[in-house]
């Protein structure tokens, strides 16, 4: 008979192996930026949604596409445009005629009914279409014509947006930004990575990713992650970080008081703690350290800090404000 501790260690080891396998699978297609890949996988295993930002051509779509290829899960892609309707995402009732001539309305599922959904260029969709994502992302179900349809589990939305070209776009409202577990930024690759990209994309070599990670493994991984222990001082450190992003709170650093209009919500603390648990497991620990929280603070807090006019005029980024918060908040 296996002891509970041995079982837990096996589960943790399985999670680590699966994570490493996925990282390697993505690495065979998506070149470089290991931290970005790790954060995307953390987000996926924690069943969170990610907002991926980057200039055109940096591989945002490829990254998500590769992840979905490595998973034995349903993948849905939505290319957002200004004329995209909510029904195009959620699905709608269509009139169906049966063999005996009877006509009835049947719900036709939209692309949101998938395990991994790629919402490409989400800021090009109209606000009401963006709002259609809200219920799905938060509640994991959609309501069409008064009928609620649950979504499949696991369910993750990976949305991409181009932060440079803002003409003809509809910036995501704060409420929707807050639904995203992480905001990830795709950087310009270095010269070596670019050379590798050229070699892979301009030759005949085709990389086939074998899907190995199934629905049950993802669910089991999430269960293991949630069992990781967090001490009260560590939780309080995360909460102090979140509180320090609010300009009207005494603990906030001067930069936050000057440049922030509104700080992060409690969802930020949830995201930080859950992803820190996954990081701890990857590091071979069964408890969260404050350093884990520091490592995930940037993707978890950056998009939840609403800057004010002065920050935009002086080009003070949200990432710089998060760094100021990390510097000012002491452990303990």
């Amino acid at each position, binding site marked *: 008979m296996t002891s509970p501790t041995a079982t837990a260690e096996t589960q943790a080891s399985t999670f680590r192996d699966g994570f490493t396998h996925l990282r390697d699978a993505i690495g065979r297609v998506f070149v470089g930026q290991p931290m970005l890949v790790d954060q995307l996988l953390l987000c996926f295993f924690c069943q969170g949604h990610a907002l991926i930002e980057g200039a055109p051509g940096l591989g945002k779509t490829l990254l998500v596409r590769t992840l979905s290829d490595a998973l034995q899960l349903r993948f849905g892609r939505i290319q957002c445009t200004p004329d995209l309707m909510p029904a195009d995402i959620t699905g709608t009732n269509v009139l169906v005629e049966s063999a005996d001539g009877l006509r009835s309305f049947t719900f036709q599922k939209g692309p949101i009914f998938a395990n991994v959904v790629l919402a490409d260029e989400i800021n090009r969709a109209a606000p009401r279409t963006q709002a259609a994502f809200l219920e799905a992302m938060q509640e994991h179900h959609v309501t069409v014509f008064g009928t609620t349809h649950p979504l499949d589990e696991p369910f993750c939305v990976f949305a991409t947006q181009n932060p440079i070209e803002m003409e003809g776009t509809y910036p995501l409202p704060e409420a929707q930004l807050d639904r995203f577990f992480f905001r990830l930024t795709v950087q310009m690759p270095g010269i070596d990575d670019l050379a590798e990209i050229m070699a892979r994309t301009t030759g005949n070599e085709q990389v086939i990713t074998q899907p190995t990670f199934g629905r049950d493994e993802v669910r089991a991984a999430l269960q293991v992650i949630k069992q990781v222990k967090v001490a009260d001082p*560590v939780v309080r450190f995360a909460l102090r970080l979140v509180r320090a992003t609010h300009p009207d709170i005494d603990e906030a650093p001067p930069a936050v008081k000057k440049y922030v209009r509104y700080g992060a919500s409690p969802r930020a603390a949830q995201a930080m703690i859950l992803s820190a648990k996954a990081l701890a497991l990857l590091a071979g620990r*069964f*408890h*969260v350290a404050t350093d884990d929280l520091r490592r995930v603070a940037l993707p978890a807090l950056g998009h939840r800090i609403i800057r004010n006019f002065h920050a935009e005029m002086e080009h003070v980024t949200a990432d710089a404000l998060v760094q100021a918060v990390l510097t000012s908040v002491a452990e303990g």
Partner: protein
Amino acid sequence: MSDRRPPWARHDRASGAVPFGAVPSGAMFHAELNSYRRRLRGGVFWTTAPLLVQGSVAAGAVFALVVHVGAWPATVWAAAGGAVGVVMSAAWASLRTPSLAATATVVDRWFALEDRIATALQFADAEDAFSRLVVDDARRALEAHRHAPLLAEPRNSVRWLRSAGVAGLLLLLTVVNRPGLAPGVAVSAQNSVRSGGSSDRQMASEENSQSGRERVGTSATGGTGPAAASRSDVADPHNRVASDGGRGGDTRAGTSTSRTSSEAGGSSPQGSFAARGEVPASATVSSGNPGNRAASQGGDGPEGNNGGVPAAGGGSGIGGRATPAPSGSAYASASARARSQAEAAIAAQRVPLRLRAVVRDYFLTIQPTGRQ
């Protein structure tokens, strides 16, 4: 009868088996963490003890020097102070002992254990698998660092050697400076009185003279007897002690002079000047001369008592009282006589060159028609 032992200790005596579910990791973790807590307490003690012991020994020594209590030697007081310091250090360390949670935080940070100990402390009593894994992991980490220094624990030998050195020095000072003797003054007084020679007197009189005016008198003195007395009289017409001493001590100041000289071992009136000069000279300079700044050594005289050397053993004489200054024609004649004698002394090269102007200024100042 119920077994009062903790669950992890209730093993089968025959087989030695620990029952399932009674894994002692939590208790062992607590025990291990407590040992670190004791180390922290010891660290507080060893950090504060040297300072407190040194301070207490010093306080004991000072107490013995200043208060002169009973028949106990100063060493006993110093040792008692040291003991009090040790007790105070122990009490302080006990007060400052960190809690288990604080200990866990300190150990985590000191050994960079990534919050292992704090987490394990919180989940030490939980029964789920992850909690046990956390506790076991933390216990292993604690065991691994058991012999590593914690919080820069002080090197006791160095601290105590330093403390012993300071304490020894204080004790030495305590023993050397026995109660009742002010260092320096008393010793020089005793020596000069015992010797009674003119050179000693000269030295002592120079010691006694703190101002230029006084130095006129003392440098003019040089010896004992009537001549010395008269010279002193020249130096300061207000100095009734000097003049009276020359006349045999028949005034109040003279009384003080003879008393002082008798204390110092001198018996002749002629020797009183030397005695005045050597012994704190209360009689000599506290003679009520408002212009005599050197009267400082006069102890508790009501006037002219702001000198530099403590008036040990000589300050309480009658001569400490003020002598009324002469007035009218008597003052004028005394002043003129003294001035002429001073001029004679200057002419005879008995007044140092650098003081001649001072002497003349002095007599100009105290002349009856001038400003005083």
